[in-house]
């Protein structure tokens, strides 16, 4: 506690390092293709930041964020298809599989501004309604997790069945432009990367702020003792609802950016497996920490690509082994590793490096909460 001001700046030091890595280092050293991949991981990471809030801070195991990722992605994809088709035009696949008419519920997305509104508001509405129904009835734990996953599965099945209006299993792809910018141009691809990285960094900052507010502390309190919070006169359902809605909107933003970056969205990107993939990064990085979910998602994306490129036939075994190792040895994720380093350093009277990935909320109380629950989990295993 010799330098309290600096100590509390550590999460921001970590954030600055990440910002330099993403905005300066990566564009300087990576090829266009690799930068495009990193842009894709950033989209997953934006969704992961939301999962960090809902799961890490709020204790809600959101197994179906693919639903919200998909809402954002399909809304964007539908807008891009309509924009490519031009005023009054019909997207190419509808002429091929359907009767070459644009369904009424597609029409509002012709307008770019309206599409952006849909991307932000629709997931909030869906998550809000679902959250109201679920949290007010005090449904939690595994029941909530199963419900959220079932919704993602249902969404993917629904998409597959609607070949004429959603492209079915093929999904939507072959986008020419993004709000007037040609997508084949590497310069525009770089622009998309900077947008994704920029939104990721801003959303992490927003979390840093949120974690320090009264809401942020209430959320942790609800996670660790929902009944106690209720006795103290606050309805935990409202706190959880807010966190769940924010997580849904972040997932939707990630999905919307994913579409022009990856150039495609299909039901495989929004279903159960995709949802668990989003969660895996958060678990790897450390769900309760500030930077853990984002860094974890970036690392998982990188690891999956590298393993698959190095061992095309057997990469999934390596990935599985990686998960088993992390869950067995580091249940608190990579952030726990830094916590261990910190503890070792504390004994030597040196606390540098402790908060790089952890980013615990203001005040000693919040900090011990997080540390304690991580160690409790470790003990429970």
């Amino acid at each position: 506690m010799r330098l309290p001001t600096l100590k509390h700046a550590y999460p921001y030091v970590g954030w600055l390092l990440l910002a330099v890595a993403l905005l300066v280092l990566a564009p300087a050293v990576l090829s266009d293709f690799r930068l495009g991949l990193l842009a894709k991981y950033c989209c997953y990471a934006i969704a992961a930041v939301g999962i960090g809030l809902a799961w890490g801070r709020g204790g809600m195991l959101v197994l179906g964020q693919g639903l919200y990722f998909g809402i954002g992605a399909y809304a964007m994809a539908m807008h891009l298809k309509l924009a490519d088709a031009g005023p009054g035009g019909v997207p190419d696949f509808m002429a091929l599989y359907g009767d070459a008419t644009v369904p009424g519920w597609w029409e509002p997305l012709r307008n770019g501004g309206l599409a952006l509104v849909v991307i932000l508001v629709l997931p909030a509405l869906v998550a809000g309604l679902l959250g109201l129904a679920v949290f007010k009835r005090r449904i939690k734990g595994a029941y909530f997790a199963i419900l959220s996953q079932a919704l993602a599965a249902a969404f993917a099945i629904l998409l597959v069945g609607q070949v004429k209006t959603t492209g079915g299993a093929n999904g939507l792809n072959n986008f020419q432009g993004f709000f007037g910018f040609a997508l084949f141009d590497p310069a525009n691809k770089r622009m998309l990367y900077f947008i994704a990285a920029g939104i990721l960094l801003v959303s992490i900052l927003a979390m840093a702020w949120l974690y320090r507010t009264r809401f942020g502390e209430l959320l942790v309190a609800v996670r660790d003792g929902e009944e106690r919070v209720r006795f103290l006169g606050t309805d935990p359902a409202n706190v959880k609802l807010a966190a769940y809605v924010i997580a849904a909107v972040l997932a939707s933003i990630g999905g919307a950016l994913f579409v022009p970056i990856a150039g495609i969205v299909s039901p495989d990107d929004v279903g159960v497996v995709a949802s668990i993939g989003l969660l895996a990064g958060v678990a790897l990085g450390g769900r309760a920490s500030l930077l853990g979910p984002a860094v974890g998602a970036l690392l998982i994306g990188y690891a999956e690509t590298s393993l698959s490129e190095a061992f095309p036939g057997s990469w999934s075994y390596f990935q599985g082994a990686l998960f088993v190792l992390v869950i067995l040895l580091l249940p608190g994720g990579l952030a726990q590793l830094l916590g261990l380093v910190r503890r070792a350093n504390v004994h030597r009277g040196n606390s540098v490096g402790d908060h790089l990935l952890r980013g615990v909320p203001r005040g000693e109380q919040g900090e011990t909460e997080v540390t304690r629950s991580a160690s409790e989990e470790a003990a429970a295993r």
Partner: protein
Amino acid sequence: MRTKFSSRLLAASSVLALGMTATACGGAKTGDTATSESCVDTSGDTIKIGFLNSLSGTMAISETTVFKSLSMAAEEINADGGVLGKKLEIVSEDGQSEPTVFAEKATKLIQDDCVAAVFGGWTSSSRKAMLPVFEGNDALLFYPVQYEGLESSHNIFYTGATTNQQIIPALDFLKQEKKIESIFLVGSDYVFPRTANKIIKQYAAANGIEVLGEEYQPLGSTDFGTVVDKVKAAGADAVFNTLNGDSNVAFFKEYKGKGLTASAMPVLSVSIAEEEVPGVGVGNLEGQYTAWNYYQTIDSPANQKFVTDFKAANGAKAVTSDPMEAAYTSLHLWKGMVEKADSFEVEDVIDASDGVTYDAPEGTVEVDGENHHIAKTALIGQVNSEGLIDTVWSSDKPIEPDPYLKSYDWWKN
């Protein structure tokens, strides 16, 4: 004090992040045309090509066999001195049975590995996902599986059958040889079966065949009790089956279980090859019909060599099937095009493609430079007691590819 410090940092960093984002804007607007520079390295004594097959996920069981026959073709070509004197260097990537991954890996092979051509893909969704990538980068894809037609990309060569080389001959066979007057359609719920059935219904209407029912089940569905009941109740002269994967196992078990037989109500399948027969069960399939352009039982020197070599490399129990043969053929056709063009450049290869032939295991095939498909002989087969497929009817000569069915006046898309 510390709050102030953090808030300032927060504000400053936000401005920084947004500023970086804003300054990065720029570049071409929509409507501009693409210019892509090829990075293929032709200076050394090897040339890189890419194989893109699903080696994990639900399609791995099928696509791994394609990967094996592609590898065999590459080894043969290398043993024979390579292409234009350069040995083939294979870069293999896993499509993971997901369209998005196919798009990503195709980009990687083209932009990062700088391969001269890519071979692979199986499902229609994987091909649709890769199409804009190959067109946008002006690269080459060889796609080895029969498909639903209605497509012909400048940058793709289709070495499997299009509908007028598989589905329409199958209907001709049912009409002329089996004298059917009614038919029942069963398929998986995705693009290929739906498009195939659209064609079948128009053919039926023009040829006086009554379609008594049309049933779809989601991919991977194994619940066929109701469907088979409907088939039985309808009492059609034949069933046209466009089911894919595991669903066939459940369908044919149920079909046999409900007392339906190949002689009374034959099923003609377009997605069951030698590879799938053991999975469905020889007992459930014996006597049923299939439509393809290649069977392991084809009696020709080219096929004997293909089958013998494949068994030598992959074990005596390994079987060869139509998509494997089409993939093997595709690599040899690319070699023929490159040698005719005397260049690895994509546009040179495409320009030289018309009329390139290869004595494939299925017989001699010829590339149509116009629509990038190949002329293939249609073969109707019947599953025998050993689980192999015997040819019972043939179009006798290669059928010119007609992906948009322009030469059929009953067809209206």
